[in-house]
């Protein structure tokens, strides 16, 4: 574990320090605002298929399935899937093609979304699926047991279709905290992730960390897209790092 923490630290330092060396790069250095304690990016579960694909030099197809919090209205290029694609292209070997596609299932509960997975996977055959869910269920206060069942089914369907899966939980939304009860859904996603050995990208904890540390003011009523863009940029970076770590594709590991 210690080694992993150290490794994450090295990786983070690496990604903070590296970009200036690569002139003309599309990706500027990670803003200090994106900093996260390493444990939030650590996972025990592995992404074997991603690792194989990258090691074999095959193109990496990533599908992000999510609800509306996966996008920023009218600025798609700044949303986290697009940011993740840019960062992954930057961090993985130059020969590697990375393609991220997004499937927005707005206002669909986990159960409704999971129902579409078989067909979706026939059409797309990605190596990795990042499934962001929970928000719609929390808004509609779906029974957490049913929610857990639906997430379990969805994960199984994605795995059966031959993809690695990463689960992404809700956004931290302090303004609606008195109205939406997130904890049961966060807990159940954690349980499913544990049971199915799937990495869980804890978006909620990360955003809360940023808010608590004062990097972002998530209470802000601002109507402009700036805050959303910055937060999505940080999530995209964290997600790229998370995928690289979970697939053991970091520079240190590749040398072995």
């Amino acid at each position, binding site marked *: 574990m210690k080694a992993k923490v150290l490794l994450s630290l090295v990786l983070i330092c690496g990604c903070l320090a590296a970009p200036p060396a690569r002139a003309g790069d599309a990706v500027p250095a990670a803003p200090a605002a994106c900093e996260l304690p390493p444990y939030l990016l650590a996972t025990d579960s592995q992404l074997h298929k991603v690792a194989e694909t990258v090691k074999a030099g095959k193109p990496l197809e990533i599908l992000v399935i999510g609800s509306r919090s996966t996008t920023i209205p009218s600025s798609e290029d700044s949303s986290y899937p697009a940011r993740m694609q840019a960062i992954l292209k930057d961090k993985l070997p130059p020969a590697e093609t990375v393609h991220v596609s997004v499937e927005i299932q707005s206002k669909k509960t986990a159960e409704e979304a999971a129902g579409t997975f078989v067909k979706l996977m026939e059409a797309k055959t990605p190596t990795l699926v990042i499934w962001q869910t929970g928000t719609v269920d929390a808004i509609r206060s779906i029974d957490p047991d049913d929610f857990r069942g639906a997430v379990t089914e969805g994960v199984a369907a994605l795995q059966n279709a031959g993809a690695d899966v990463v689960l992404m939980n809700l*956004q931290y939304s302090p303004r609606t905290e*008195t109205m939406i009860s997130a904890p049961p859904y966060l807990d159940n996603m954690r349980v499913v992730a544990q049971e199915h050995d799937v990495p869980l990208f804890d978006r909620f904890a990360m955003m809360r960390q940023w808010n608590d540390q004062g990097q972002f*003011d998530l209470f802000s009523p601002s109507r402009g897209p700036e805050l959303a863009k910055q937060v999505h940029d940080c999530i995209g970076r964290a997600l790229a790092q998370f995928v690289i770590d979970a697939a053991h594709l970091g520079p240190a590991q590749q040398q072995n």
Partner: protein
Amino acid sequence: MTIADQVTGSTIAGTAGAKPVEAKPVAAKPRAPAITLPAIGERELRLDLFRGLALWLIFIDHLPPNLLTWFTIRNYGFSDATEIFIFISGYTAAFVYGRAMLESSFVIATARILRRVWQIYVAHVFLFTIFLAEISYVATSFENPLYTEEMGIMDFLKQPDVTIVQALLLRFRPVNMDVLPLYIVLMLALPLILWSMKWRPDVTLALSALLYAATWEFDLYFSAYPNGFWAFNPLAWQLLFVFGAWCALGGARRMSRILASPVTMWISIAYIVAAFYVTLTWYVPQLGHLMPKRIEQWMYPIDKTDLDVLRFTHFLALAALTVRFLPRDWPGLKSPWLRPLILCGQHSLEIFCLGVFLAFAGHFILAEVSGGPGMHALISLSGILIMWGVAWVISWYKRVADKSGAKTKNAVGNADLAGGG
């Protein structure tokens, strides 16, 4: 040693003595006349103390996490302030209305209970109004594109006709407003519980446990609007309430030997330490490795809606240790330092509602001022001070009212003792 025999000394012993089933001579303490119920003597300050504590903790837990959140017990084990609150409410409700049931009649006791239910219902509707005001404000002033999805929660404002009626029917219940509806349902069942307790306390408790088991086995629940279910399932949580009532009506005294035994103490300590360790793995994920997967799979999720057995037993362990190490005559109970807590616990319904309101207000201030951790802590602290201040004002009102000659009301049964929210 137990709560019950100390709460009451005389009163409950009298209660127990009046029950035909409990003909054991143990029940009749020398100082307790068999059937006559003397006027309520000294209050059981420990009940007030812990209910006050639960109120403070519920308030802090309803605010966004901050420094003070680390003082709430949910970070150190499975159970949290809700368990304390429901248990003490069951205990005090049985204590007060059980007297009415024995002294007067089933009808009189039921009538008094229903009056209390009405008060709680009105309090709930009051809180809902405040919630509506808050959410309407947020809906019109907050349009951060980061949260377009979360704003979907405001959709219910589009159908106020349905939503408000559903709220009055207790089916639409916003976050943080779950405890009062639970309490209303439990209080509605109280006449039946007391009537059954009067007949056979142990059978009543067994029936309650049976209902709890059936709730788990057959997945029974109360449906909510627009969908979902009650966040605190009354069919499960009634176990804690009935258990409180059972303790108040002599159960605790009969358990005193078990509670005094060192075996119980060590089991409780071991369980609490184990629970603490498990909670530690939530905050220090590095420790997760030391946690056997099989135990994790068996244990999770620890369900709050249906009062998970792990939560219930954790509460029992805490209660057992509390009763053991905090005697009724502990001089600290009279100390001015604990006075604020005890005062709040003595006016629980009012202070509970105030706490929910202050949590809303705190959110609001944080949203408008965005002051960081310092502001967070300041809001928590001032909230607690306000709760204390209001509790003091309420008791001042009561003292003044007493002086002007309304003493009869107290003799009948103090509604505050019956516990709110």
